[in-house]
């Protein structure tokens, strides 16, 4: 599928992608979290772009963040300080974990970009007052963007952006479902390039290209092979080699609960609701990041049903080193899987990781256990 190359290209050079988008008339606002309301950013005439670490050596960020801060946070700060993100016109920091919270302060204090907003979302997603607060925070964000662009955001602007983002979600959902029915129809590395690329490239381009991917996929439906069916669970997985290693070891990824996977595109914004309410409601309904609270067993329930629905053989936890919210959830998620007789294994990851030998060996062992 030729479309996939475009996604890989966007992933490999987000700077060039942003500059092209800029030339076409949209300035870029970067974000670091799946709770960033892309719809509002897009409706304001900006391009929302998810930031990842370029994995350069940490030099400048050493003066701001200690070594026990996760590689994602340190890596993105390094990129910013080194000028590798100078294509940005601004950034928005939705409130998630403690490390991101402090990154936002450090980012603001060492400010390099014109536009900066802390989007202090609620930590609770399951109460009425939190839902009301969420919507008000989004309304405030809309005003901030209007002030930055000098142009009013109408409900039509918002509805159009919602429809566009929903298109991306629907297409990615189809790709995931097709891949689950026909494991191996798309390589893991390609699958995650589609998701990551859609976070980086122009929204309309991503939606149109994904439509092409969907129709190409529909033409091919290989029968299920003997590969062991895996669900990935964790935070950010930004190392394509990992997916190759899973496949080499005899596994096929049939679903995930990842921040760089389904958590980002899970659920649709209701197109018939008032736009901001719809966006807020989706955050309450979609797969939950462990930095948010949606009930005491919400994440375990989701994970177990994900395994059941996708007829998975096991779960691989990809845990980013120093990521507290995920590390706190791991024992209870594992216990919930154990109770259902579902096998799992935890893999500690690091964005800066260069050798994947150990990962591959452990993955092979795990897959043989299934």
């Amino acid at each position: 599928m030729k479309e996939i190359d475009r996604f890989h290209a966007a992933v490999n050079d987000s700077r060039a992608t942003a500059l092209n988008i800029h030339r076409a008339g949209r300035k870029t606002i970067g974000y670091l979290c799946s709770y960033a309301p892309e719809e509002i950013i897009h409706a304001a005439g900006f391009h929302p772009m998810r930031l990842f670490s370029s994995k350069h050596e940490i030099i400048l960020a050493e003066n701001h963040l200690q070594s026990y801060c996760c590689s994602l946070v340190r890596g993105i700060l390094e990129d910013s300080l080194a000028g590798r993100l100078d294509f940005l016109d601004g950034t928005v920091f939705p409130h998630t974990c403690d490390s991101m919270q402090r990154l936002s302060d450090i980012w603001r204090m060492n400010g390099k970009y014109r536009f900066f907003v802390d989007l202090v979302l609620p930590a609770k997603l399951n109460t009425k007052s939190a839902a009301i607060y969420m919507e008000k925070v989004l309304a405030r964000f809309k005003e901030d963007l209007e002030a930055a662009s000098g142009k009013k955001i109408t409900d039509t602007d918002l509805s159009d952006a919602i429809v566009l983002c929903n298109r991306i979600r629907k297409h990615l959902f189809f790709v995931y479902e097709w891949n689950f029915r026909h494991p191996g129809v798309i390589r893991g590395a390609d699958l995650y390039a589609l998701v990551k690329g859609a976070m980086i490239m122009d929204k309309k381009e991503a939606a149109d290209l994904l439509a092409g991917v969907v129709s190409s996929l529909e033409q091919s439906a290989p029968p299920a092979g003997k590969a062991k069916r895996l669900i990935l669970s964790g935070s950010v997985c930004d190392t394509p080699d990992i997916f190759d290693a899973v496949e080499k070891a005899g596994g096929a990824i049939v679903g995930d609960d990842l921040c760089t996977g389904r958590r980002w595109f899970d659920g649709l914004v209701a197109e018939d609701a008032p736009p901001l309410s719809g966006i807020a409601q989706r955050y309450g309904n979609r797969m939950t990041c462990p930095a948010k609270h949606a009930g005491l067993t919400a994440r375990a329930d989701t994970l177990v049903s994900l395994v059941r629905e996708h007829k998975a053989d096991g779960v691989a936890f990809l845990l980013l080193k120093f990521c507290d919210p995920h590390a706190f959830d791991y024992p209870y998620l594992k216990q919930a899987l154990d109770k259902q007789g579902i096998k799992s294994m935890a893999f500690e990851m690091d964005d800066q990781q260069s050798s994947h030998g150990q990962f591959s060996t452990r993955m092979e062992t795990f897959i043989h256990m299934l």
Partner: protein
Amino acid sequence: MSEKPVDKTKIRSAKKMRDLMTTYYLDALSAQQNNKQVAWITSGGPVEPLVAMDIIPVYPENHGAMIGSAKMGEDLCGKAEDMGYSSDLCSYARTDIACSVVKGGPIGGLPKPDMLICCNNICGTVLKWYEVQARFYNVPLFILDTPVCHTGYSPEIAEYVRTQVDEYIVFLENMTKRKLDHDKMTQVGKLSFEAQHLWQKVLNTTAHKPSPMSAFDAFFFLALIVTLRGTRTVVDFYKELIAEMEQRITEGISVVPNEKYRLLWDNLPVWYQLKWLSSKFSQHNACLVADTYTSAWCGAIKYIDENNFLDSIGQAYTRIYLNIGVDQMAQEVLDMIRFYDVNGLVMHSNRSCKPYSFGQMDIMNIVRKKTGIPVLMIEADMVDPRSFSQSQVENRIDAFMEIIKQREK
């Protein structure tokens, strides 16, 4: 004077404080026999409604500090790691989670909670930690969500937090099957307000040269404002403590016998090394006169209206030291440097506390630029001794004190 200097420097109130804490823990441990309910609450959470409703508040974080001081942290942290919790997680959380299962620690574990109250104004870690405990004990969890005030307190935050204060009261009324007695609430609020004022006054006594007490003493006397805020006990005790400090000032008794250098401490204490650190600095005639940690329990007093307590605590609990932007934290550090007139800043880079430690390096740079005083950063952990290298820290303290001595010549 015939008294030995070692007796003179000893703070008499310490014994009474120990007795008060023992009584408090005995009460908490026998709550069930006395038909009283126990609520576990985060150290930065609003305890006053619990006091007003006759629910015994218990603080896992205070318990963590006790575990650290008793040097039982390594064993309990290890037990949590055996349960699958990463060694990179907060050591208060790790020890508490392990203690619940193995009933270990200096008091054989905390009394079982009837409910959990989690206020995330200090970190996101408490949210995860209390979720773990709510599942373990199978008891209701109330979350008071206090959005971070990076640059200010917005009307949206004010409304959200105020609503949650009402939800909190309803939660407690449902748990106790009793209505809140508003007169009692007012009374408790006034006592809490007074206690916070008194605590600030205790801390302010160290502005005197030489200082009658040190941050190490503050770490100890802190337990009362944390655990029993809103009771008469705290108010009475701190009044006595202030009187003792004032007497020490009048008599010229200092906690460090030949105080020459004054230092400010940042972050939580290194609980298992208090004695060693205290004597290490004393050897250099240096007194840690103040810290950013213990002042957090009176730092937001400006937002409290004692006559309108429930309406004002939303803001007071949301705008505490850790729940603000790093630049505002730096400003508070600068204010303390001036107020206590210190010669240096010692920062504890605490692996267990990310929201406290990330941003420290920016604060360090601001302090250096604006005041020129030397800053030392010590790598450690508040409870887990495996992250502490005594020889390395000793070398760094010696070198740091050398710089200060040369500067102050």
